[in-house]
């Protein structure tokens, strides 16, 4: 599913349990809890580990605790309890070392609009103590990387939202950090600006930098991440690779349109069942023809088409529907609600809410 060209970090080993392999860890969180002074527990019993070089996604709806978590990891909020180690340094005891080791891109675009792109980067270089001699080259490299070289000496206040975001991301990288936190980096951007940022994040990750991304866009997590954790109401409710999470929901669905009435459909069904990868329970009749559920649509789809053609069945329509992370998210959200309060009525209400979220996600 991942369309990443060459991934420096090998894909996370065991996808079903999603245990990170034994590599040095960029992020190691144990039993993190964060309670605000008004008593709101924003993060509860969160345990997670992100190995070096991974593109890790933290997925959840608004208010789930994503930003609170990322702020704790980036030393901006002190944990109420639990331990957080970033690149081996404790976020409370060793705050300055953590700050020197990470890049942080906040949810709101943070650039100094009165300064030019180059001046923003120069300030970031100074702030992170980049050696004077490396500065000019580093700044030029980053301006190229985020395609802002042509407007390097223009005040950032004149930039579009996407350009500001790219500049913001570049300033988080001046010190070549091992780990970058990106808090909902594409919220509010148009699709083109979003795609450019995605390219850019992949390039960062390809250079070996660990990326910790929060997002409420399921598509974004699916597109970019090696591994995901899903957070809801301050708790992690699922984790694994995007593919593994999708498998939790069930297989892909192949829809076949068959011409020639009921007999033709019966003949087609018989042909389909002959394929060793198909068992009876996964074949259903529909108004247009047949529906086949499978875990391997990529291979089965073409096989079926060839078999049907050889059997003389006229296939008028063919489509494959792979479950999206939206489906995963809805399934998980429902599971979590069911587990929390059990009552069917409550689950129904929650499902409606989940549907609303689903709609919102689709509309976006």
């Amino acid at each position, binding site marked *: 599913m991942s369309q990443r060209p060459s991934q420096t970090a090998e894909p996370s080993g065991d996808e079903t349990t999603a245990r990170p392999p034994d590599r040095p860890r960029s992020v190691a969180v144990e039993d993190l809890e964060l309670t605000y002074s008004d008593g709101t527990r924003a993060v509860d019993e969160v345990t997670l580990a992100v190995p070096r070089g991974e593109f890790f996604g933290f997925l959840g709806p608004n208010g789930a605790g994503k930003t609170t978590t990322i702020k704790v990891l980036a030393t901006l909020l002190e944990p109420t309890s639990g331990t957080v180690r970033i690149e081996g340094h404790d976020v409370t005891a060793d705050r*300055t070392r953590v700050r020197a*080791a990470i890049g942080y891109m906040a949810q709101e675009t*943070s650039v100094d609009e*009165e300064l030019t792109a180059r001046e923003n980067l120069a300030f970031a270089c100074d702030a*992170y103590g980049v050696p004077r001699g490396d500065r000019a080259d580093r700044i030029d490299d980053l301006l190229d990387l985020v395609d802002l070289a042509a407007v390097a000496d223009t005040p950032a206040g004149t930039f579009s939202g996407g350009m500001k975001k790219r500049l913001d991301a570049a300033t988080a990288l001046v010190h070549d950090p091992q780990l970058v936190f990106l808090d909902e980096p594409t919220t509010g951007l148009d699709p083109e600006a979003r795609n450019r940022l995605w390219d850019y994040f992949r390039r960062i990750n390809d250079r*070996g930098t660990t990326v910790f991304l929060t997002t409420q866009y399921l598509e974004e997590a699916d597109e970019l991440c090696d591994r995901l954790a899903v957070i809801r109401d301050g708790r992690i409710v699922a984790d694994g690779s995007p593919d593994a999470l999708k498998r939790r929901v069930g297989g892909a669905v192949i829809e076949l349109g068959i011409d020639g009435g009921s007999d033709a459909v019966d003949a087609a069904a018989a042909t389909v069942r002959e394929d060793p990868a198909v068992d009876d329970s996964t074949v259903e009749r529909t108004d247009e023809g047949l529906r086949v559920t499978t875990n391997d649509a990529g291979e089965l789809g073409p096989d079926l088409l060839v078999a049907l053609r050889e059997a003389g069945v006229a296939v008028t329509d063919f489509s494959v529907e792979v479950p999206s992370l939206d489906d995963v998210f809805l399934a998980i959200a429902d599971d979590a609600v069911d587990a929390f309060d059990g009552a069917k009525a409550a689950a129904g209400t929650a499902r409606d809410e989940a549907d609303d979220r689903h709609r919102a996600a689709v509309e976006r």
Partner: protein
Amino acid sequence: MSAPDADAVAAGETAVSGTGTTVSDTGNTFFGDVRVNAERWTRKAVHNPTAFLLEIVVATFSLVLFSAVFGDVGEAALARAGFAGVDYLTFLLPAVLMQATMGSAFSSGMGLVRDLDSGMFEKTVVTPMSWTAVFAGKAAAELARIVVQLVVVLGLAVAMGARIETGLVGAAGVVAVCLLVGLLFMAVSNVVGLLARDDEVVNAASMLFMFPLLFLSPAFVPLSDDIEAVAAFNPITYGVDAVRALVLGRDTLTVLSVSRFGDTANTLVPAVAVLVALNLLVGALAVRLLARASSAEAV
């Protein structure tokens, strides 16, 4: 003043960074961090000099208008109050310098609020820079901005005929006293900014402070008996009197009677002492609020 953490000390330590490489030093030093932040705020001021220039224009207008409108009346009042022979322009100079200083000082709180709004505040906090150095650098740039304005206004006033009896040393003293007042109102504007988190409130507060304080002081005319009691609690009274003592080369303080230091110093010593005390008080509050805003405390 309690720094929120030991970051100033730890900033120079070894940090693992880069793609698996170890960089021996973050390269940060306390004074380096001060310089970096002073540079940032100076660049911002240079890129957008409108406010800076307007403050100079307003001060110049005040100087011209007040001396033209109140000149003759003012000099008669001056003679009655024991300032016989002092021309009104010279008498007015401290008022205009205070006005320019206060106006400029409030840009400190405005800059802070804009940084809070734009996320630059958080972005600066999350760097390995020392928290103390970040704000010291910002304050240094703002004080430098005030110095430039004061020098311009002083130069214009002298060109228009104002006399500084104590010469260049006295003029340096004038700038120093103005900076004490500037620092005080920078602290005030930061407190307002951190409590309100709204730059329009900071802007309104600057007007709210500036005009009553200037008029309830001996800035424009010598104090009448009616307002003397109020003026004694007005920090601008001490700033104006200290500057005026340096401009005229004599004791001008009316709200306190001090006689043990000798002539000009009878004004300077108590006035500066009051301003320093107020700076410590309001400064401590501002530093506390800034420390809280930059801390990782979950609120």
